[in-house]
């Protein structure tokens, strides 16, 4: 057939810090220009969000919070994104971004409160421009795109970042959002935490494409794959993409290759659908191990540094748990109070009815 090549595309892969905690070659200017403290901060953040997660799993086991989605194994993406973002940027998470949200400013106790099934955990501080957890997979992506459209319209000097999983790339809203971003050349960065699984569905059942990054080709903008367990690759790639967005040069799609080390949520049993060997292989690629090894060998990070860090982190978390547990129980009546700016008459009557029900049951309880 008389075929001619219409266009060529290539998809790139970025990795600085490999599985052994080494950077080869060693002279990337982006890395060498980073101060020692940055590495240590990255490490401290990774350790902290791992610990927040461990504590959440513990709170769940002991019945003090509800169903919880662990982030273990995916800390590098979350720290890399958090560090790359500026405070004035907007962030739209899925539901497995607890670490990222905390690093953005959400108090740890709020995170626990949310996972305990208390709406108050969804209220981010006023100066933090982050959306709450979005449960229906992929459906928050157009929100980020819409915010980016508003940013462009208002000519605000910021960018928007949204994070989602590999499963989300199958949803229509991923497609419609990505497409809008391309058409309107919006200041938005899409970060996919490709952790290989959507509950029990492996990536191979999610898509036949060799990478998720290549999906950006469909939308006419750049897609890049990074080692999602390499905090440097994530940080530098996301940072560059955010800067590009702020310069008005349009969207970027970043696939971070990573792995969910724990069950999907505490309601799941990953042993039903994946092998222990697979998990073990990925444990070796743990983002903590390689970053620790790097700072040990480059910056003399030692056992007492580690201990000091752990102590500090534990204190913070202990305090957060105390704060969380000392919160007054949520007032059931408040379920009515933010439906609309003004509650219409019929709803006021329904609220009244609940109020009576609460009084009766309180009296009965006394």
């Amino acid at each position, binding site marked *: 057939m008389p075929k001619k090549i219409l266009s060529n595309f290539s998809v790139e892969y970025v990795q600085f810090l490999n599985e052994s905690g080494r950077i080869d070659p060693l002279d990337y200017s982006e890395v060498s220009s980073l101060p020692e403290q940055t590495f240590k901060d990255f490490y401290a953040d990774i350790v902290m969000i791992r610990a927040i997660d461990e504590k959440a799993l513990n709170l769940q086991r002991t019945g003090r919070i509800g169903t919880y989605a662990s982030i273990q194994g995916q800390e590098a993406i979350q720290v890399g994104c958090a560090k790359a973002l500026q405070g004035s940027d907007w962030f739209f998470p899925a539901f497995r971004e607890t670490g990222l949200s905390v690093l953005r400013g959400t108090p740890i106790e709020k995170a626990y409160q949310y996972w305990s099934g208390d709406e108050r955990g969804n209220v981010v501080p006023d100066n933090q421009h982050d959306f709450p957890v979005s449960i229906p997979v992929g459906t928050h992506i*157009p929100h980020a795109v*819409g915010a980016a*459209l508003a940013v462009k319209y208002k000519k605000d000097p910021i960018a928007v970042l949204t994070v989602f999983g590999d499963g989300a790339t199958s949803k229509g*809203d991923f497609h419609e959002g990505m497409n809008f971003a391309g058409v309107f050349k919006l200041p938005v960065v899409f970060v996919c935490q490709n952790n290989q699984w959507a509950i029990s569905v492996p990536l191979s059942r999610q898509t036949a494409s060799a990478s998720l990054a290549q999906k950006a080709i469909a939308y006419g903008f750049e897609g890049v794959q990074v080692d999602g367990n390499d905090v440097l690759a994530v940080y530098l790639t996301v940072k560059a993409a955010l800067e590009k967005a702020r310069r008005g040069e349009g969207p970027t799609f970043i696939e971070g290759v990573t792995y969910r080390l724990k069950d999907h949520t505490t309601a799941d049993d990953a042993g039903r659908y994946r092998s222990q060997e697979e998990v073990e292989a990925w444990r070796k690629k743990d983002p903590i191990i390689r970053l620790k090894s790097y700072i040990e060998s480059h910056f003399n990070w030692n056992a007492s540094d580690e201990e000091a860090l752990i102590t500090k982190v534990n204190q913070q978390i202990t305090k957060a748990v105390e704060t969380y547990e000392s919160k007054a129980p949520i007032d059931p009546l408040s*379920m009515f109070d933010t439906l609309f700016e003004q509650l219409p008459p019929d709803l006021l009557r329904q609220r009244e009815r609940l109020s009576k029900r609460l009084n009766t049951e309180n009296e009965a309880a006394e």
Partner: protein
Amino acid sequence: MSQISLIQAVNQALFEEMARNPDVVLLGEDIGVDGGVFRATDGLIQKFGEDRIIDTPLSESGIVGTAIGMAAYGLRPVAEIQFMGFLYGAMEQLVSHAARLRSRTRGRYTCPLVVRTPYGGGIHAPELHSESTEAFFVHTAGLKVVVPSTPAEAKGLLVSAIRDPDPVIFLEPSRIYRAIKEKVPEGECEIPLGEARLVAEGDDLTLITWGAMLHPTLDAASRISEKGIHADIIDLRTLSPLDSSTIIQSVEKTGRAVIVHEAARTCGLGGEIAAQICEKALLSLEAPVVRVTGYDIPVPLPKTEAWYYPDAEQILDAIETVVHF
């Protein structure tokens, strides 16, 4: 103050609100140079430019989802969905997000969004261009649902919808886009959401309806009035939140009610209204509440669609039934 049609009134409301507030931004399919398939946005791109009149890809979930993000960021997006039958593609965005953003975040984020869409049948259009599934949205807590019945109503209600701090589904009865002309005030003319309009007063029965169906209802009412039977006629205008008290007060007075809507009968809004009447005004009732509605089938194609909708004849029958019960 000239005589204008409903579609012109919509255009005027959009124009004035855009001129008043730079945060009002429109998005949808073919709303730009084409001015919308019904010309609701005619001339607006020339006036406000393509940053504010945004022709989008063919993507209903994308349009509504994007509008949610815009609204949360601080704009006042008005999205056009080309026909109500294509709003189903945006159902997840509406039900799971637009309706919940405020309560999910306990007021930290709000969603002052309007979704406008032509609705209802009678325009001899292809399949899915004649839907009236307003009950889906009335059943969805957190959404407001508004349906105008005349040009002046359309303007006043759309202005209020755009200024409303919460998401509003604004359903425009396409059948009467051009059928009626009336004088519509230029400038300020907000009609508060949540308040029904008593179009006519009478002691013998209550007629409850909205949108295009107001007109055959008025027809039937005027014909029956020749027999000395006079009706309160309630044009709901806002379907959610429902102005129950206007309905109940009227039925307490008249003791009889006929509800008219073109939507399918089962689980339509008529059922809710009848239920409320029977809950709150049972002792006043002198006859069963009668619903005149579309059938529980998809709206047929143009050749037979006229048989699907209630007309004045059927409304008259219903009136006779409740009056002579």
